[in-house]
């Protein structure tokens, strides 16, 4: 293991976040706060409580997931895309580092950022609505697993993309809709049976359901299924990354 290299890349990436603090931390916090004000306080006050949880509190896990998914992807994809774009990737490719070390450091840094962000949003949410976390360890487990899984996904996008548009397109056209439709703002139980079945094909449903369960003990699907699905995604993305490095896809001519 080239520990010095992992350390160097990780710190480099974290320093980049420090420089773009506004973009990385502040703007997601502001947009999440707006969700709370609009959905939680303004509209949510008219929606009846279910299972003794206010609507504002109900949407907290979904909102955190929304930020976690989009930010993990954005951080990781940008982290690896940018050196490809500027050409500084030559140094990474010529360094005595293994693919595993590259992935650990880039994905690790991106995941760290989104975990910190998730916790900040959680704290922000606490200012607006009464929060409870029934299963804190499960909550952290889902937080970390999701951050890592979708940072890996972002890493893949960052390698696949060959322009800035492609970098944006998957988060915008796939992840955001799936998250909105995946039960961020409602329980899929309220859907008619047909649409409920359709919703179960949306992978984000499992992530949000499991995460919400760790907060309130309420879930659309069994928590074991949520965990299982998360691990399946993790394995899938790992396999893709392994293939990328094995073939040098988009990295080496």
């Amino acid at each position, binding site marked *: 293991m080239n520990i*010095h*290299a992992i*350390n*160097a890349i990780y710190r480099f990436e974290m320093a980049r976040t420090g420089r773009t603090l506004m973009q990385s931390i502040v703007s997601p916090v502001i947009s999440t706060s707006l969700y709370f004000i609009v959905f939680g306080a303004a509209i949510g006050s008219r929606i009846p409580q279910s299972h003794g949880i206010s609507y504002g509190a109900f949407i907290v896990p979904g909102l955190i997931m929304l930020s976690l998914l989009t930010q993990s992807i954005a951080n990781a994809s940008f982290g690896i895309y940018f050196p490809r774009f500027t*050409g500084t990737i030559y*140094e990474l490719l010529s*360094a*005595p*580092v293994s693919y595993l070390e590259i992935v650990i450091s880039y994905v690790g840094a991106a995941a760290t950022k989104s975990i910190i962000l998730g916790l900040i949003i959680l704290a922000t949410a606490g200012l607006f609505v009464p929060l409870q976390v029934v299963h804190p360890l499960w909550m952290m487990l889902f937080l970390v697993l999701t951050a890592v899984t979708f940072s890996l996904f972002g890493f893949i996008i960052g390698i696949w993309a060959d322009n800035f548009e492609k970098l944006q397109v998957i988060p915008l056209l796939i992840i955001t809709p799936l998250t909105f439709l995946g039960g961020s703002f409602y329980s899929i139980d309220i859907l008619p049976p047909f649409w409920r079945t359709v919703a179960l094909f949306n992978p984000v449903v499992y992530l949000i359901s499991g995460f919400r369960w760790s907060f309130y003990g309420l879930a659309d699907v069994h928590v074991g299924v949520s965990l299982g699905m998360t691990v399946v995604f993790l394995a899938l993305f790992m396999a893709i990354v392994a293939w990328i490095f094995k073939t040098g896809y988009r990295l080496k001519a």
Partner: protein
Amino acid sequence: MQPIITITNLSKTYASGFQALKHVNLEIRRGEIFALLGPNGAGKTTLISTICGIINPSEGRVLVDGHDIATDYRAARAMIGLVPQELTTDAFETVWATVSFSRGLFGKRKNPAHIEKVLRALSLWDKKDNKLITLSGGMKRRVLIAKALSHEPTVLFLDEPTAGVDVELRRDMWQLVRSLQDSGVTIILTTHYIEEAEEMADRIGVIRRGEIILVEDKAELVRKLGKKQLTLQLDAPLERLPTELAGYQLDLSGDGTELTYTYDTQGERAGIIALLQDLNRSGIRFKDLQTTQSSLEDIFVSLVREKK
């Protein structure tokens, strides 16, 4: 002594189908300065990038100090420092941060004293806290060199290190390259300035259209191909050469007004004096004279042209 780099049958065909390297065989000697010359698009950067792991070879094998670049890449790459042709740097990092980063990336533990030494040697010390985006092109070039030297490589690749660099800095760079050689570093450089190769290199390789067409000791190359000529413009045309001068390698021009003496650059100068005295004795007067020496540049140009 075992060569520091052994390249065997190395070929590279890009995805476009273009073959940029064709069965290259080359050995780089330990501790030498090797200059790789060749016209634009000859494959210099491709060759270097392949050795450094940036490009996947299509065929062939490269050993760096006995370590295969494919199977034992960690050991091979740890020895190599690369200064790329393109000026690619981060923008918002400081000089100090980016050079320290390189050292870490190559698996070396922190050593601020070494980084300081490198930065001072490249006259970058007073810029150490500047962001890279604020540096001029020549300074960025030096930062790339500092990054390559940050991890104490034993082999250094310099891909056109003096492109776009002013005269003074070029001198500094030559100085640096020499002192690196003195400390035991093997240096492979590419350049389009022939005088640079002539000044610096121990051996010269010429690559053309992906093929190495010549590898030779620089001194040997100049000696072999470098002839000096003395041309005399005669006062009065000569019918034919006097027999007293038969001992010299002389050519008389068709109209008899020009006499050309071809001699080896390594030959002793006394040859010319004697010739001039003998000419005087034979009553041959001349109004003007000039000497020309084929430089490496002439040699290079003729090589590249000849084999087209």
